[in-house]
């Protein structure tokens, strides 16, 4: 009797779980279907298969868009995202190490400030940054985005790396110091190789954050050829003020989101570790 009841609930739980997954994936299915079918076919719903002619033309159309080619957008986004990931990764790892291993008087206050800074929206800094970049002539220049993204990513990277380094055993480093190795050498020869998983987490999260950003791109980049991939989604597929060509727009969306999604699927372990790490183990 008891055994039957268990299997029953098990079945129900499985059905519910997979039903939820189905509901969750439906909007993505819609985008995928719209992107591989001509717009004429999906105006009565992408679930309507009375005629089904998969095509690659939407992707080509978005990639080589006349005014806003997504190819250029992807390239621009990479030019911004790669340095915006590497710079704070490098600086944040060093600073995090300092926070974890050396004590100085106002350390705790700095630490709390860092947590608070992580919480603020970019709107809180947008106006002075815009005026500053204007003064330096860095509007419409990727350098402004790279600088701000790096600075903006630092607080959580420092916090995350500090937590990671604090959990590493000090004994190995102490042994190395006894053997006469310098701090610098210890950091590069011993600490860094041990922290590769943490560095991977930081890389994945920060890269995705920069790639997915729209707000900073909107306030710093104005000319069409400079526009990043996310910005171009505001222009591609516009057939009029209220009319959207969902096929070409879906193809463009697929291209923009495939980068973070692939990164997530391939590096899921590091992504989740990073996410759980910087939110919970403060």
């Amino acid at each position, binding site marked *: 009797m008891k055994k039957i009841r268990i299997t029953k609930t098990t079945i129900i739980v499985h059905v519910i779980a997979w039903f939820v997954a189905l509901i*969750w994936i439906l909007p993505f299915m819609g985008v995928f279907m719209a992107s591989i079918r001509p717009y004429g076919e999906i105006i009565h719903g992408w679930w309507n298969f009375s005629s089904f002619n998969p095509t690659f033309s939407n992707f080509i159309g978005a990639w080589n868009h006349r005014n806003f080619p997504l190819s250029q957008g992807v390239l621009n986004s990479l030019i911004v995202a790669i340095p915006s990931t590497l710079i704070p990764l490098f600086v944040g790892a060093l600073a995090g190490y300092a926070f974890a291993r050396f004590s100085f008087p106002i350390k705790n206050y700095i630490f709390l400030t860092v*947590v608070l800074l992580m*919480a603020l929206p970019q709107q809180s800094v947008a106006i002075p940054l815009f005026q500053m970049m204007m003064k330096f002539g860095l509007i419409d220049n990727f350098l402004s985005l790279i*600088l701000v993204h790096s600075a903006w990513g630092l607080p959580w990277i420092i916090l995350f790396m500090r937590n990671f380094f604090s959990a590493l055993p000090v004994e190995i480093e102490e042994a190395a110091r006894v053997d006469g190795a310098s701090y610098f050498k210890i950091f590069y020869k011993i600490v860094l190789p041990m922290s590769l998983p943490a560095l991977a987490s930081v890389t994945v999260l920060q890269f995705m954050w920069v790639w997915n950003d729209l707000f900073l791109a909107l306030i710093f980049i104005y000319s069409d050829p400079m526009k990043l991939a996310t910005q171009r989604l505001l222009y591609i597929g516009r057939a009029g003020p209220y009319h959207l060509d*969902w096929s070409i727009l879906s193809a463009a969306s697929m291209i923009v989101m495939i980068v973070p999604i692939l990164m997530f699927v391939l590096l899921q372990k590091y992504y989740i570790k990073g996410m759980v790490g910087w939110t919970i183990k403060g």
Partner: protein
Amino acid sequence: MIIFVVFPILNTIYISFLSSEGEFVGLENYANVIGSKDIFNLENFPKGPPLGAFVHNMIWILIHLPLSIVSGLILAITLRDVKGASVVKTLVFLGMVTPMVVGGLIIRYTFEKDVGIVNGLLYFIGLGDLAKSWTAYPDTALFALIFGSVWLWTGFSMILYSAGLATIPKDYYEAAKIDGASAFKTFFRITLPLLRPITVTVVTMTILYELKIFDIVLVATYGGPGKASSVLAFQMWLYAFRYFEFNRAAVVASLLTVLTTIVTIPMIRFMVKR
């Protein structure tokens, strides 16, 4: 970091007290902005949106916070003993890694008349009369976006709760079972209290997300129709980078700074206590 983060925050607050000519005007901008219909539009109060960006953010929190957290928790608990749970988790979590711009587009597409699956399902269950472009009407636009954002964000609480559940020792549940505790009681006496640190984090991060909503609104409705789905972060951008009214925008930005600080302080105190 001080140049690009700390100074701009303080400078924004300073600008919010200046007139457009740069004179110190005290709280005049605040009175102007907070008194404007963009932020509080209480005339419409019982009728529905547009109610002002601030009120919209509060509605967002009121609906999105309980929905996304409870569904994330339920998913995390249910998926503990489901075959293929990691696939389900990955699918639910996709919303979190998708760029918010794309998320906003998908929400609009999903709620659009004829092409969107929401209306397709309405036809399917015989409620075809209700089908419309949900994001194009003032009374439904805000709510369509809120439900869409629940879809995007649930993966967050699910993943954090899953990680938290994994740290609860199995013995506790076995002991509860031996003592004859019901599943209900086990949940409220063991699971929930042990997940408290995670709940603090999830609630804080979720409110922060709700206060920062920007991309979704911009791309799906542009705050419309008639400001019916505008939120603070979006209104700030409109003031600053569409109308170039930096002082008014600085007021909204400072408001956001204060709100996020108020939300974060309890979490910091909680972290320090531990």
